[in-house]
Every structure is written in structure tokens, then in C-alpha cells.
């Protein structure tokens, strides 16, 4: 019967009662409780079910290492599965339900598995469920998935927010125990910037629970003083509820701060992800107590000795009236003493060691506690809670000597330093035989950007278990870190620590040492994943000898605690089974994060409107207000069409095409790239960039150009205008602006750095509008200003001037085949200019149009579109664009590549126009099959469609495509896939479907 003690509980405030719910039951706790201590105070021993056998599970630890006690926490937009009760601070109204059982926690049908446990050993699923074949997907797998999985999936969108924060510090100390505090203080006194994190909301770690003394005063007081001192220092950042989650290359550290988990109604971000750059990192992360492997060590009520002590001292909670302590080291005696001091009974301390216990044992005996040396637990009795233990000789095979009634068992198999953060970035470990632990190998620390070591472990995390040694190590590490960070450590000694002497540990990996299979099958290593001693031994027997194989085969250490309690015990059993030393077996890789961190925190502020930038042109507001159906183009949003009420998107597109061809259309072309290239070598440079000859272009003229990469493939196109003798303005595609700008800078900086050329990306300086259609000139003349007559500005010419009072640069270019002017004005006046065109255009039937209309009109004219006719594997020659490739030039980017055998082959697919015989539209992406199959049984192909539309102008389907030897096959009829297994016949024709002679654009 676990309950709240009338006295004790250094962390709880009994003046502040708190109400919460577990599985619908109303319960009481106090401010300062964790959900774990509160549940135990309410005698809730059974808190969950295990992963595989659905065994009853109780709380086994008191911190982040807890493998069992995971709950569904909260409701609606604040629901969260798999919350560890030991790290969940209690708050008023907390709502939690237990996981992985049906129908209820007390009665779980899945628990049937425990009776079949014998038939479900490690890796059983690799050996069965193979027949009949379809059963895996339809029967076996659904069952396995359903019974696995722990917590429920959230149903609603997360109602909380998150944020990131960049932090820079000279020395980062991770861990707020006495080692961390001493190290932080030492480092801070050097004047360097120091940051210290503690994952819980209370400082001091174990020392304050175990009653150590520092500088002659109780650890508790020393901790309070030190925290206060640090808080008062300008150069110190000190944070509780903040975990060092991961250490990455070059001193990058993730800090995980939980801001409102303990007060969910408070405003502001729930979590803050700190992205830290630390010159030196000290991991003072303490150690984790190891369970002992004896039969029934997973029954609720069996708990880590130190955890049991924590509940009594920190939260004034007793796990049971009668607690049997079982250990292989002296530390567990502290638990026995603490319990007796709290007025509870300890029937016996079962010490596996034959001798070697130190003064703590004498102290225990002095308190009248019975101590049994050389003994072990053969078996724990009980089902959903402990009822007693059967005692045996540790050296034997489990013959029961005596049974002791008890309702709790405190176990201690020794301590494992928390080396995760040390190891994340490559820090290596050594096996410490005397203390039976892996600890950091200072000679093989993680190295940084200059090859220097940048992580040091301190205190218990560095293998020092005694207070004095912890403090000395911490201060020494801090001094070293300060030096390494370029500071000057202050002279002075470490605080003096004192605690009880301790006898040596003697490693116990199995209890009793000769336990037969019946007991080994009940001795748990991984409580959550149900991995037992017998499973690891089976893995070894079947040849899974690498620690990684054994882990993956048995799932040892793959649970949500990532093996914090089970890994060392497991690999000791494996080593024993393989008759090799533990270091020879080695550990599995430690990967971030130390304990799981929320996806929300990782995403940070990037959600909803801030998920990704949306680039907006100066006219974007008008588009939004006027039915624009947007399509993303890069990070831009461009209107696909402007849909009017009662119209479908398709209707709108058809209307826009017809109107532009008949009257007047406006296109927001602001997103087109505009690169200014200037310098005495600008012409020479563009001759290399483009396949065309640009150096011969006359000022005032425009030329359409193609760009290829060094692999010969077409990457961009656009109109180049020569501004003056050494200045060009290069238009790129919408997606191309940044890419091509970078591409040009690359060549100028890294290849032709002696050429005198400057490039600036002026894309967003201008709002650009394409004024298109038979009435284009009329509307400009109405607005007044510069002369836009054919005589003044002919096709493929540009001119600066004023239009309707706006400073404008006018390009006489056309991507539609109509009379067309592309007019650039300063972006700050783009919207006003757009409005002016709309107003003046009214009498000429003006209508804005979107990208789909643009695509159709260019397809009707047989103009290619980068991204449609090209896909990164197409060269200009494939598109019959030899006319745009200068023969006079020795070189241009891509020229050499285009000379390679496969590129020059006459068998390449080339661009043609396509007309369906029945006038229908060939589906997007359709392929043209050829007779026969290839060597792999695939249907031969002879071409594919690249652009295909219904042309409202011609009232029929038109398309362009790449066809084998296409241009030589004019008039041929070939078939294209319709996607439903049928085919559509199409005739190979010229790719220009509309105004072949260009009369309309050249007026």
C-alpha cells in the first residue's frame, strides 16, 4: 500500500493541494509533486501495461529513465501520448489516462500474451506468420500493430505554439546537480559566459536527497546558496526545466526548455528549442541506477532503491510499509536507513556480496535492520503488486531458503554514468572494472571544428560516485574548460564534500548467478519491451553476437527509454553468453535526443502563415481580392486564373485566352527574374552563359536566349535587353532568378575572376506588367506619355520613358503571339500602375489573366516552356533550336557536353506539334508506345507529350511532344496512352498552331 507520509517531502508544498484525474478517478496531490509521486500517494501502483506481453507495470524510477509509467496526458488540442509520469509536474486539473490495454488497465485482454510468453521469445515473428502469404498483411500484421504502439494518436491540431532561440556561450554546463553547480560557479568566476541547464525544476540532484555535506553545511543549503550566487552573476545563464537534448558537431547543442507543461493555461510558447553554440561543454549529467535481474523484478512495487528513497525524501511518499532492499553495493543501504528513519519497516537487506559492505551497513544494523550477505532474491511473489520475496543463495541456483512478506522491493545493481551527451558526437568510453561501469575516456573526447576536444564529463557522469571526488572533478573540469575556451581560471580549491565511506561494489548481472531457465525467463532486462535474460541468451545462441544484432533481434533498449535501465545489464548478459569481456562486446550507439523532444519544438515558429515564406508581388493584394486561384511557383504565388462568380476555373481560363486574343489582357509578370550584368567584359561573359551570341546585340534591342548547364541540358531561357555598351538586363524564368544569379556569380568568382563584370539581381525592384492583345497599344496611348508606335519601338526593342505619369521601361516582346508590351515600373508604384491600366483599359475590354492562359497562348504559338518542354534531360537541339545556338562561338557552357556521342545521336527524341485526329486533348504526361517490348519486357516507347491543352482559339486539343526522329515524320499518326489502357491517335505536325507568320505580334 503506497501512501503519503505525514512528514517529509522537501519538494511538496502541503499548503497547496492540487486535484487531478487518472483514468477518470479524481485524486489529490500537492504543488511540487510529479504525477508519479502523486499517483503513488494515492496508492496507484499499477500505471500501465508492457509493450509485448501487456504485463502489469508500476513506476520503477523517479526521473527521465522511467520505462514503465507512460500515460496519455491532456485532452483535445493539448492531448499528448507517452508522457512519463516521473517527469510530469503536477498541476491543478491534470487529466491522464493509462495506455496499451483493452478494455481496462486492471483487466487487459492483451495480458493473455503473458501466458503465451513462452511461445513468443525474442524474434518469434521472424520465424512464423509466413503462411499463408496474404495473411501477413490482412491478419497477422493488423493484430501485431494493434497490440503494439503504446499511447493513442492525437486527434486534433496542436493548440500550443513553440519557438527557437539562438544562444552563444563560452562554457555550457549540462546538469544542475552539485557537480554541475560547482563547475558552473568555477567557470563563471573566470568571467567567461557560462550557461547551466537542469532538466527538472529543482537543483542539487542526488546529493540533496542523500544528505551529503559540502563545506561543512548540508548539501541542500550549499545548493541554495550556489544557485543564488549564479542567478546573481551577469555572465551566467541559469535555467531549470531545460534539458541538454543533444550534442552535435562543432559545439552545437540542442536545449529543450519546457515552459508551460507545468502550467498549461499560461500564454506563450509551450517549448523553446535552444540552438546553442558552446566553445566548451561540461556534461554533469549524473548516473542512473541499474536494476537487478531476478525473477519477477518487473512486478509493480519493485523499484530502484534510489527512486524509493527519492519518493520518501523529496515527496514524502512511501511505496510500502514493508520494503525488502536487495543490492550489490552500499548505496542501497541509504534507502533502508531513510525508510526506517521515516518510520517504515525494512524486514531485510539482501546483499549479494559475501562481504565488503562498509559503514553504511553498520549504520543499518545499528538501526536494527537485518542484513543478509551472500543472498539474493529467487523470485518476487505477486501479480499486480508485490506480496513477498523468496530468498536464496546468490551463488546457487535459486533454491528457496526463506520467504519474506513485503509490499515493496528496493533494488540496486550499481550505477551507470549518463554518458549519452558525451557520446552523441563521437566521445568514446572505457570500462571501469572496479566500479563495474562504462565511463568517458578523457583521451578520446569528441573533437570540434579545429580538431580540439570540446566536451568533458564531470562528477558522477565521469565515474566519481563520492561527494568529495565529485566536487573536485567538477572544479578541475571547469578550470580546464575555461582554459580551453580562452579564459583564465581563477585560483582556488573545490568545495569540500563529505559523505559516508562506501565498500566496493561486486557486479551482479544475474540473480541468483546460477538461475535456471525457468527463472531467467522471468528476469526482466527491458521492462517496457519485455526483453528478458533468456531472450538475450537466445539471441547469442542463434548467432546475433554483435551488440547491435542482439539489440535489434531482441528489441532490448529500443523502447521509449532507449535502454537507460536495460542496456548495461543486457550487454553483460550477452558478454557472458559469448564468454567475452564486457568492453569487447561494447555498447550500442548513443543517438540524440537524451529523452524524447516534441515535434512541435523542432518545428518552432514555422507553422500556419509562417510555415514557409510566401513571396508576394506589389499587385498580390489585388489578385487576392479579385478571385485569383493561386498556384505556387517556387515560393511565389502566381494567379493561375482569375475566377469570376459562377465560373469554373476552366471557364475562367478559356475566357481569359479568348479575351486576350480579341481585346486586351494584363499579366502580372513581376516574378520574372531581372539580372543586371555590367562591365567591359559583360558581352564576353554572356556569350559564355547563353548558347546565343549576346555580345553583338545592339543597345536598345532585345534577344531571346537559352542557357545550358555544363552537362549540356537546357536550364533557363529569357529575353536579354542591351541597356548600353557594357550593361545588359537578363530576364530569367520566375524560378530562375536566384538560381541563375548564383550561377553567374559562381562562374565570375570561381572561374573567370579576372573578367570585369558585376551582376545584381534587380528582380524585385520592378513591377512588370504584360499588356497584351489587339488593344494593347490603344490603352497605352490613352494613358499617354512615350510614343509606343511601331515606328518608335519595333518588335524586340525596348525603351525608357513615361506612361501615364509612371517612369517605365517598355519592352516590345511577346510570349503570346499578340501585340504585346512588357512594362516595368518601380515596385513601389506597381499597384498604382496596375490600377491605372485597369481603369484606362475598361473601354478596351481589359481583363487580367493568369499563368494557365499564358501557357495556352504560348503553346498555341509553339513556344517552349522551361519545365514543360525541358525536364533537365533535354538539350536545345532536341527542341530544334539550333537557330538559338551560335555557330560562331568557340565555347559556351554546355557546348562540349552536347558533342558527346549520345547527345549528338540522330536517334534522340525531338520536338514536334501534335494534333489528335478526334480533336480531343491528349492527357498530360502521355507516352507514345512503339511496337514490341524491350529486353525487360517493358513496352517500347517512341515519344511523349510535353505540353497539351484545349485551345479555345482553335477549338480543339493541341499539344507539343518529343518524338523519335519527330521532325522527319510530319504527317505520321502515332498513338498516345490515355491512362485507362486505351490510346488516342495523334498526327505529327508543325509545333506552331497559331499565326505561323507572326503577323499579329508584329503590328
Amino acid at each position, binding site marked *: 500500500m503506497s501512501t503519503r507520509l505525514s512528514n517529509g517531502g522537501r519538494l511538496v508544498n502541503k499548503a497547496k493541494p492540487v486535484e487531478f484525474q487518472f483514468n477518470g478517478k479524481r485524486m489529490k496531490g500537492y504543488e511540487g509533486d510529479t504525477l508519479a509521486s502523486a499517483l503513488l500517494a494515492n496508492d496507484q501502483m499499477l500505471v500501465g501495461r508492457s509493450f509485448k506481453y501487456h504485463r502489469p507495470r508500476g513506476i520503477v524510477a523517479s526521473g527521465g529513465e522511467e520505462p514503465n509509467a507512460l500515460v496519455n496526458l491532456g485532452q483535445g488540442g493539448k492531448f499528448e501520448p507517452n508522457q512519463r509520469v516521473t517527469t510530469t509536474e503536477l498541476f491543478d486539473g491534470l487529466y491522464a489516462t493509462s495506455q496499451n490495454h483493452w478494455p481496462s488497465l486492471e483487466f487487459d485482454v492483451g495480458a493473455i500474451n503473458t501466458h503465451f510468453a513462452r511461445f513468443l521469445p525474442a524474434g518469434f515473428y521472424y520465424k512464423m506468420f509466413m503462411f499463408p502469404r496474404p495473411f501477413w498483411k490482412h491478419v497477422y500484421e493488423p493484430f501485431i500493430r494493434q497490440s503494439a504502439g503504446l499511447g493513442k494518436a492525437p486527434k486534433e491540431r496542436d493548440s500550443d505554439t513553440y519557438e527557437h532561440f539562438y544562444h552563444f556561450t563560452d562554457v555550457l554546463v549540462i546538469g544542475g546537480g552539485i557537480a554541475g553547480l560547482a563547475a558552473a560557479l568555477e567557470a563563471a568566476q573566470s568571467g567567461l559566459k557560462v550557461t547551466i541547464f537542469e532538466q527538472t525544476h529543482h537543483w542539487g540532484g542526488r546529493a540533496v536527497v542523500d544528505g551529503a555535506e559540502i563545506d561543512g553545511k548540508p548539501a541542500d543549503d550549499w545548493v541554495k546558496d550556489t544557485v543564488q550566487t549564479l542567478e546573481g552573476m551577469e555572465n551566467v545563464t541559469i535555467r531549470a526545466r531545460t534539458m541538454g537534448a543533444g550534442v552535435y558537431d562543432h559545439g552545437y547543442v540542442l536545449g529543450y526548455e519546457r515552459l508551460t507543461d507545468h502550467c498549461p493555461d499560461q500564454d506563450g510558447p509551450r517549448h523553446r528549442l535552444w540552438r546553442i553554440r558552446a566553445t566548451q561543454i561540461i556534461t554533469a549529467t549524473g548516473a542512473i541506477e541499474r536494476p537487478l535481474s531476478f525473477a519477477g523484478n518487473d512486478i509493480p512495487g519493485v523499484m530502484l532503491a534510489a527512486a524509493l528513497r527519492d519518493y520518501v525524501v523529496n515527496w514524502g511518499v512511501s511505496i510500502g510499509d514493508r520494503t525488502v532492499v536487495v543490492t550489490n553495493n552500499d548505496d542501497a543501504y541509504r534507502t533502508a536507513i531513510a525508510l526506517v528513519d521515516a518510520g517504515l519497516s525494512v524486514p531485510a537487506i539482501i546483499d549479494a556480496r559475501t562481504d565488503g559492505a562498509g559503514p553504511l551497513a553498520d549504520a543499518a544494523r545499528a538501526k536494527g535492520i537485518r542484513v543478509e550477505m551472500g543472498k539474493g532474491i529467487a523470485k518476487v511473489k505477486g501479480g499486480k503488486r508485490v506480496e513477498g520475496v523468496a530468498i536464496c543463495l546468490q551463488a546457487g541456483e535459486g533454491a528457496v531458503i526463506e520467504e519474506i512478506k513485503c509490499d515493496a522491493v528496493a533494488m540496486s545493481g550499481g550505477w551507470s554514468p549518463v554518458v549519452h551527451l558525451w557520446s552523441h558526437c563521437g566521445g568514446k568510453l572505457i570500462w571501469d572494472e572496479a566500479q563495474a561501469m562504462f565511463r568517458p575516456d578523457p583521451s578520446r573526447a569528441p573533437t570540434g571544428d579545429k580538431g580540439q576536444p570540446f566536451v568533458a564529463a564531470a562528477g558522477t557522469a565521469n565515474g566519481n560516485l563520492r561527494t568529495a571526488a565529485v566536487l573536485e572533478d567538477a572544479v578541475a573540469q571547469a578550470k580546464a574548460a575555461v582554459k580551453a575556451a580562452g579564459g583564465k581560471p581563477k585560483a582556488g580549491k573545490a568545495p569540500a564534500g563529505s559523505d559516508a565511506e562506501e565498500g566496493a561494489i561486486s557486479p551482479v548481472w544475474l540473480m541468483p548467478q546460477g538461475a535456471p531457465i525457468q527463472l531467467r525467463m522471468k528476469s526482466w532486462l527491458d521492462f517496457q519491451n519485455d526483453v528478458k535474460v533468456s531472450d538475450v541468451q537466445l539471441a547469442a545462441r542463434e548467432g546475433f553476437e554483435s551488440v547491435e544484432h542482439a539489440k535489434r533481434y531482441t528489441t532490448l533498449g529500443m523502447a521509449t527509454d532507449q535502454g537507460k535501465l536495460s542496456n548495461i545489464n543486457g550487454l553483460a548478459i550477452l558478454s557472458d553468453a559469448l564468454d567475452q569481456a564486457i568492453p569487447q562486446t561494447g555498447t550500442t550507439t548513443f543517438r540524440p535526443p537524451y529523452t524524447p523532444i516534441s515535434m512541435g519544438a523542432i518545428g518552432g515558429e514555422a507553422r500556419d502563415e509562417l510555415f514557409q515564406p510566401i513571396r508576394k508581388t506589389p499587385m498580390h493584394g489585388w489578385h487576392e481580392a479579385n478571385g485569383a486561384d493561386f498556384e505556387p511557383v517556387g515560393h511565389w504565388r502566381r494567379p493561375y486564373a482569375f475566377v469570376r462568380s459562377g465560373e469554373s476555373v476552366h471557364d475562367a481560363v478559356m475566357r481569359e485566352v479568348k479575351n486576350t486574343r480579341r481585346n486586351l489582357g494584363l499579366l502580372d509578370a513581376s516574378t520574372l527574374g531581372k539580372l543586371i550584368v555590367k562591365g567591359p567584359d559583360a558581352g564576353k561573359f554572356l556569350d559564355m552563359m547563353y548558347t546565343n551570341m549576346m555580345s553583338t546585340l545592339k543597345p536598345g534591342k532585345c534577344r531571346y536566349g537559352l542557357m545550358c548547364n555544363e552537362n549540356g541540358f537546357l536550364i533557363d531561357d529569357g529575353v536579354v535587353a542591351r541597356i548600353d555598351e557594357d550593361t545588359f538586363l537578363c530576364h530569367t524564368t520566375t524560378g530562375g532568378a536566384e538560381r541563375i544569379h548564383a550561377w553567374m556569380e559562381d562562374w565570375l568568382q570561381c572561374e573567370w575572376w579576372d573578367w570585369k563584370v558585376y551582376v545584381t539581381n534587380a528582380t524585385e525592384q520592378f513591377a512588370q506588367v504584360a499588356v497584351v492583345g489587339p488593344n494593347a497599344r490603344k490603352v497605352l496611348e490613352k494613358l499617354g506619355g512615350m510614343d509606343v508606335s511601331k515606328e518608335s519601338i519595333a518588335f524586340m526593342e525596348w525603351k525608357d520613358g513615361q506612361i501615364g505619369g509612371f517612369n517605365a521601361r517598355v519592352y516590345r516582346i511577346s510570349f503570346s503571339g499578340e501585340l504585346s508590351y512588357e512594362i516595368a515600373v518601380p515596385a513601389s508604384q506597381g499597384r498604382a500602375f496596375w490600377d491605372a491600366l485597369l481603369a484606362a483599359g475598361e473601354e478596351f475590354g481589359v481583363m487580367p489573366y493568369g499563368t494557365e492562359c499564358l501557357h495556352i497562348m504560348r503553346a498555341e504559338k509553339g513556344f517552349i516552356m522551361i519545365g514543360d518542354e525541358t525536364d533537365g534531360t533535354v538539350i536545345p537541339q532536341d527542341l530544334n533550336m539550333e537557330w538559338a545556338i551560335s555557330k560562331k562561338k568557340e*565555347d559556351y557552357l554546355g557546348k562540349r*557536353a552536347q558533342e558527346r556521342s549520345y547527345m549528338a545521336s540522330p536517334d534522340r527524341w525531338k520536338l514536334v506539334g501534335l494534333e489528335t485526329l478526334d480533336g480531343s486533348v491528349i492527357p498530360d504526361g502521355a507516352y507514345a508506345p512503339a511496337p514490341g517490348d524491350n529486353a525487360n519486357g517493358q513496352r517500347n516507347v517512341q515519344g511523349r507529350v510535353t505540353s497539351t491543352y484545349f485551345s479555345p482559339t482553335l477549338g480543339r486539343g493541341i499539344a507539343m511532344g518529343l518524338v523519335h526522329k519527330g521532325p522527319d515524320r510530319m504527317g505520321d499518326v502515332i498513338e498516345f496512352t490515355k491512362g485507362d489502357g486505351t490510346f488516342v491517335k495523334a498526327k505529327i505536325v508543325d509545333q506552331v498552331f497559331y499565326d505561323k507568320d507572326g503577323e499579329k505580334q508584329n503590328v
Partner: protein
Amino acid sequence: MLILECPCCGVKSEETEFHAGGEAHLKRFGPGSTDAEFEGYLFMRENKRGVHFERWRHVNGCGKWFLAARDTNTLEFFGFYPAQTHEPPQDIKDKISAKHPGWSWREFQ
């Protein structure tokens, strides 16, 4: 998450300010080169486990390209230098020699 120091503007900052640009000191082969030369230039990259010379651009910064020497096995940077050169500066080569005696990379050592 690497830290780089741009030799052009002096900023020392994290990787996200930069853009990696592949192998450094490539000799361009254009028209007139053999198929082998051209294939080598375009595709045959150094991919050593160890010293590597590479291009970076300070894209979210001064916009300049620069070169770096890095150990692909430890991610240690031996140094950064401007892109306008055909071979690594001696001081960087010396630094590498100190760590990897007898190293070589293409024609450099």
C-alpha cells in the same frame, strides 16, 4: 552542424548561412578536350575518407564563394581561403601535414 569562417567577410557562423558547392580546384575542360578529360571534369570527384578540398558560398551573407580544407572523417576544418586560386595555401597544407603526414589529394601534397 558545421561552423565555417568566411575568409571574405570574416563572419564565423553556422552552416545554414552557407551553401556547399562540391570539390574545389577543378580544372574546366571545354570544346577540344577528350571524352575522358571532360568526363573527369564533370563527374569524377575526389571522395576521400579524410582530407577534402571543397567550395562553399556564403549565400546568406556576403555572397562570396570561398574554399575550405576539411577532414570528411572528423569534420575538422584545416582552413578557409579565397576562391581565386589554383591551389591551397602553404600554411593550410602544413596544418594538414601535421595531422596527416604524407597526405595527398590530386596533385597536391
